[in-house]
Each structure stands twice: as structure tokens, then as C-alpha cells.
């Protein structure tokens, strides 16, 4: 009982803080729009991929990117909690560490889902046609990706002392994940060495699943993609629970 109300408390706090930090809300809306308009729009006029214009092609990639960035960067809030010593207050509560971790995870997932929703709403503007099934499939992918990536961010955050350090480490993780994921290019016909790296990137399967659901073109079947990102999420959650158990104040 108290574990559940503790979980709820941790989640509630994240939501409140999120809505109060206006810069977070604003940037979560504008970053993806910027990408879509500038990158997609600018290049889109000259490139056609798999029979669609580039803006349409990278749209699932932009959705994945927003989720990736929001989710992993959420890990900074555990570093922040340590810095403002709120972490002590949480760690001294009679809650399991796994509860504390899951509280943070659902808090971060809420951020990511809000952002994901905003980005998904942009779809029709660039000519993506949604049916309830498409939207459902997309949401499931976004949800599972967020779970894995928020956990990844928290694993990193739980080991870091300073926000700067966190930023450094995260860039080393996030950019490769992003650029290797096929968010910006089709993943068939890559040079072999690059192809291997792409297949090792869990985000590849998220992007592929979204592309399949929204644009009807994908490398792997939807369920295979979903299976891979679910396994990734499960692994990161397990790792995060362990990391939080070992975490110091």
C-alpha cells in the first residue's frame, strides 16, 4: 500500500515540476517542429526516398528522436535531485529502491509521452494519414521505447555527480543511438560494417516499427521490432533497478 502511494508521490512530483518548468514544455514542442521543418523541409525539396519525399520519410525518425532525447535527458533529474539533496529525503523513505526507480521511470515516461503525443499530432500536417490502428501501433512503440530510454538515462544519471558530467556521457550515448538508427536514412543497402552497428542499435527497431506502421514500409515485421524494443526496455529496467540499489546519496 505505502509502496503504491510512494510511487504515486514520486510521479506526481515529476509531473508538477515538469509543468512548472516552462522552458521544458516549450522546448519539448519546438525542437521536433524545428527538425521537421528545417531539416525535413529543406532537404525534402530535393530528395525522394522510397517513393516519398524526405520530410515524410524521416517523420517516424523525428518521432523517435524526440522520444530518445526527452527520455534519456530525463536522467539528469536524478543528478539534480542529488544536487539539491531531495534525493536524501526520498532515499530515507521506507520505500524499496525498485519503487523509487519505477517512480522516476513513470515520471520520465509521462514527459516523453506528452512530447510523443505532440509530435504525433504533427503527422497529419505533413500528410501522414492516421487510422485508429496506426495510432495505436505507434503509441505502443513510443511507450515501450520511452520505458527503455528513460531507464537508460536514469542508469547513467544514478552514477553521475554533476549535471555537466551527465551531459557529456549522454552525448556519447545519444548521438550514436540516433545516427545509427536509420532515423535519417533507409537501412537497407548500407555498407556491411555500418549495417552491423545499425542492427545493434535498439532505436533502429523503434524507428522501423514506426515507419512500418505509418508509412507501410519497413525492414522487419512489426512484432519483431516490438519484441526487440521490449527486450531492451526490460533489460534497462532491470539494470536501472540494480543501479538504484547501489546508488549513494
Amino acid at each position, binding site marked *: 500500500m505505502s509502496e503504491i502511494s510512494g510511487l504515486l508521490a514520486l510521479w506526481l512530483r515529476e509531473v508538477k515540476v515538469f509543468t512548472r518548468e516552462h522552458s521544458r514544455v516549450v522546448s519539448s514542442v519546438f525542437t521536433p517542429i524545428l527538425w521537421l521543418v528545417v531539416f525535413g523541409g529543406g532537404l525534402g525539396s530535393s530528395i525522394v526516398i522510397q517513393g516519398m519525399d524526405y520530410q515524410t520519410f524521416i517523420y517516424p525518425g523525428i518521432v523517435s528522436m524526440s522520444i530518445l532525447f526527452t527520455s534519456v535527458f530525463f536522467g539528469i533529474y536524478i543528478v539534480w535531485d542529488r544536487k539539491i539533496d531531495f534525493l536524501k529525503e526520498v532515499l530515507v523513505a521506507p520505500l524499496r529502491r525498485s519503487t523509487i526507480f519505477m517512480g522516476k521511470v513513470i515520471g520520465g515516461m509521462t514527459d516523453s509521452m506528452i512530447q510523443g503525443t505532440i509530435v504525433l499530432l504533427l503527422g497529419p500536417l505533413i500528410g501522414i494519414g492516421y487510422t485508429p490502428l496506426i495510432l495505436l501501433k505507434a503509441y505502443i512503440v513510443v511507450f515501450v521505447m520511452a520505458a527503455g530510454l528513460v531507464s537508460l538515462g536514469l542508469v547513467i544519471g544514478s552514477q553521475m555527480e554533476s549535471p555537466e558530467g551527465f551531459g557529456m556521457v549522454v552525448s556519447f550515448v545519444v548521438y550514436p543511438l540516433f545516427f545509427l538508427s536509420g532515423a535519417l536514412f533507409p537501412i537497407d543497402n548500407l555498407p556491411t560494417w555500418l549495417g552491423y552497428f545499425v542492427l545493434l542499435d535498439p532505436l533502429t527497431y523503434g524507428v522501423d516499427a514506426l515507419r512500418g506502421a505509418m508509412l507501410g514500409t519497413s525492414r522487419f515485421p512489426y512484432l519483431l521490432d516490438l519484441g526487440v524494443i521490449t527486450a531492451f526496455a526490460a533489460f534497462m529496467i532491470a539494470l536501472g533497478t540494480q543501479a538504484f540499489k547501489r546508488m*549513494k546519496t
Partner: protein
Amino acid sequence: MIVEVKGLTKVYDKEVKAVDQVNFSIKEGEVFGLLGPNGAGKTTLLHMLATIIEPTEGTATVNGFDILKEPGRVRGSIGIVFQDPSSDDMLTGYENLMLHAMMFGVPRSEWGERINNALKLVELTPRANDRVKKYSGGMRRRLELARGLLHEPKVLFLDEPTLGLDPQSRERVWEYIQSLVKEKGISVIITTHYMEEADHLCDRVAIIDSGRIAVMDKPSTLKHEIGERILLKGVGDSIPDLDALSFIKKYEKYDDAVELCVDDASKRLKAVLEAFPSFEKVEIRLPTLNDVFLKYTGREIREGDAAEGGFMERIMTKRKNR
């Protein structure tokens, strides 16, 4: 014994012995003071008891639960007010208390009432819905005190709870701590740099220096050991034979003054004055806990000698950061 500490030791980074083989135990309903200079190891000791840092050696039980084997149950028995501010300044005072109630298993039906009572107690009711960011340092301190007490723990750890409070607020906190002890029978471990506070509140104090307990006893006993003093100034050369006065336990001569150590200064004053043919001024010095502190640590704590990286300082730097 509600708290039993057995050989507790903490070594930081393989070289700094912050807490060194500490042993003590506390009875239910007792208020126990930990006094010591900056860096003595008080906070480290409390954090080990609160299970948020691991001891290097030794262990302790709190409310019957071992801090190593059942940390969850220990946390369920305690409340702690940290030396550093640890509330979320993006949330309001009310919200901070609410989160605490939710995380610390306060029954849902009691949330509203307890929070309102707590706010009233620390006189923050009118500011309850302001973000903590907008609080003054002392207000924030009071909020965190209210928070530590909200779930009515069996054992309460207070790490410099009244640092930065004005005199009225401080006295109100004292009163409240005392009433908690009396009515709910909770036990308290408190660290403080205010000797007056320790004297007023604590049934027993331990003075710790460099991680070790130098002495541990009732404040009155410790003060008694120092003895009372009579100081005579402007005595010139006319000093009587002090060894002949048998009630004088010890004496010390200075340039133009003499200090006599006696058991009951006000009773002996008459005899002393009669023995001295001439003097300018006389002063009775009753021992304070400050004298005791000095004796065992060789250092003096002055009022306002806030802990390193203390509460107010931290607030100021944190504000800038956010």
C-alpha cells in the same frame, strides 16, 4: 534500548576516519545530544543510523531493527531533519509535506489534518501555497522540521534543526520537541552547535571529536565536573594564603587577578571576600556546557559558528543554481 550503536565506524575514501568505533545506547523517550566541532563526524553518524550511508565497520539497531539487515524497517521507524536543505523548491510547502506523507505511509485519511497541523505549528500556514523557492532560509528550515515530524516517527534524528532560526522560532521548536517526547514518547538524537540548546533539551550529551566520543553524560554532571569559579580582579599583591582555605579545590593566579575553583560559589563567596583584604571586582562564573565543550575538544564554539557548508550558505548557492 531504542537505539544501540555498536562499534560503528565510517572511513571515507580509505583514509578519512569520520566515525571511529562509536558505542552508545539510548532509552525510549530520551533526548540525546551529539556535540562536536565541524567535521567531528556527527552527520556521518546520523546518516549511518538512517541507513543512507553504509558503515565501514560495526552496526547499530534502531527500534530493534539492525541497520544492516533490516534497513527498510529502520527507515519505517525514523524521521530525520537533514543538515542541508532537502525540500524541492519548485513545489509549494504544502506539496512538499504532501509528498512526504505519501512516501512515508501516513494513512490517507490523515493527510490533510496532519499537514495543516504541521504547517500551523511552524507558522507557515499563510505561506503554504507558495513555492519553497520563495521562502526565506529560516522558513525553509521550519518547513523541513515540520516534514520530519509529519509521520510521527518512533525515533527522530535532528541534524542542527534550529540552525538559522530566529530566537522565537527556536524556542517554539524546543517546546515542540519536548512535547513530542512527553506525549508520544519518541526518542530524539539531536546535533547542534548551540550549547544552550543542548543544555536545555538533552537528557544526555556525547561530545565527539575526530569521530570518537570524548565524553558522554548528563549536562548537569558534566558541568559539575568543571566546577564553579570565583574570579577576583584588581587584587594587587594582597593575596592571602589560598592553600589554607580548604574549600578551594584549585586556583590560578593571573597578573592582577585570581581564579578560584569551588563547589558552591554563592555559598563560599562570603568566606572568600573576607579572606581578601582588597580587590576591585568579583565575578562568579557558573560552568556552562560551552566550558565542557572547550575542555574536551580544546576548541570553542561561538554563537553563529555555523557548520561548514551550512544551511544558509547552501540555500544561497542553490538558489543561484536553479
